[in-house]
């Protein structure tokens, strides 16, 4: 396993192309759940968790069911009826969103049964994650970048960490901002967006990082 490659993927996903600040994914929770540090941290943890698992499952779904290759399980099962592996890639969108929705529901139930403490802190954020475009986004991204199994999981985890980083930084700033004297019209979402713009500007500095 090429550790250096995994490191490059992680740094890329956390800093250089941060999910929120340069890819514009997961903005709804970024603006909605960033008013308090505690809840931002909880949401971030839930996203890291779901994104890693979602990367794992969507990768398997894509390569074992949708892609027309010799590894396709549908082809293996119905070998005597099919001449060639079926190309089901057009079902990608539907398959991924249904897998993620089911997965989130399942994770919620498992956490509720096994650790009520964790459920109390993450529980309310889990249903929100289904419609978080960051999770579906990372699934598409893994496929588009031709990542292998391990790379996909690492990318999912690192993207989640990048999202958490941006969310927690934002929450810290917004708590301070409560005290600031902001013009009435700019209070709330508008000033949050401008702050996000400035943070994004700062994160653009990381694009100078290059590996070679």
């Amino acid at each position, binding site marked *: 396993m090429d550790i250096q490659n995994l490191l490059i993927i992680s740094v890329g996903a956390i800093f250089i192309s941060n999910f929120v600040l340069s890819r*514009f994914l997961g903005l*709804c929770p970024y*603006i909605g759940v960033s008013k308090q540090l505690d809840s931002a941290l909880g949401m971030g943890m839930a996203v890291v968790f779901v994104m890693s698992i979602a990367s794992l499952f969507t990768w398997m779904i894509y390569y074992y069911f949708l892609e027309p290759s010799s590894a396709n399980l549908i082809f293996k099962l119905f070998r005597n009826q099919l001449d060639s592996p079926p190309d089901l890639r057009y079902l990608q*969108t539907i398959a991924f969103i*249904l897998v993620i929705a089911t997965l989130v529901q399942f994770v919620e139930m498992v956490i509720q049964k096994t650790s009520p403490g964790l459920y109390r802190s993450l529980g309310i954020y889990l249903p929100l994650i*289904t419609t978080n475009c960051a999770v579906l*986004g990372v699934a598409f991204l893994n496929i588009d970048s031709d990542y292998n199994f391990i790379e996909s999981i690492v990318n999912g985890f690192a993207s989640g960490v990048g999202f958490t980083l941006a969310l927690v930084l934002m929450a810290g700033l917004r708590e301070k901002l409560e005290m600031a004297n902001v013009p009435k019209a700019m209070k709330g979402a*508008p*000033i949050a967006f401008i702050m996000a713009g400035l943070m994004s500007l700062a994160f653009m500095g990381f694009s100078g990082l290059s590996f070679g």
Partner: protein
Amino acid sequence: MSVGKEFIKGMVRENPVFRLLLGLCPVLATSSSVMNAIGMGVSVIFVLVASNTLVSLLRNFIPPKIRIPIYISIIATFVTVVDLIMAGFFPDLHKSLGMFIKLIVVNCIILGRAEAFASKNNTFYAIIDGLGMGIGFTFSMIIIATIRELLGNGTWLNMPVFGTQFEPVLIFVLAPGAFITLGFIIGGMNWLDHRRAAIATKS
């Protein structure tokens, strides 16, 4: 319930982008040029109208307990249709919009309208609502894209607007420009609201 009111509410009073702050990811990500904004807007209008129509036609047959997965499947179907049509006929646009076409599936506007409006009203009103909301969304995207493309590139729909003397403010076509533009537009709309309210209380 009047047709005109349902149609117009999506554009101003309940504008999904500027008022409700819904579906922001594609708004910020694909508004770096007016062409992209129009492509994204038209895709959203199609998916919104089609899913609203189907949800409203099926509203008496969908069991309430599993309605959300059913809505998501309906929406995902239409998104796949748009994705394949665009890949086939407009490959350049499809390439520059990237995965944001597929991500229309998780756009809160579409699921929100299915849940809040189409599942309770008849098909005709559902179509009107979808059209109004979709056009409101497209309209907001075009406004943001106009500002960003004019300042960041000096063009509008790829036509040069300013003379050769103009030095483009590159930051506006990059990620930070999107956030800052949207922040100022929402702030401006709040300011107008406060002003209108102040005038109303005075008189």
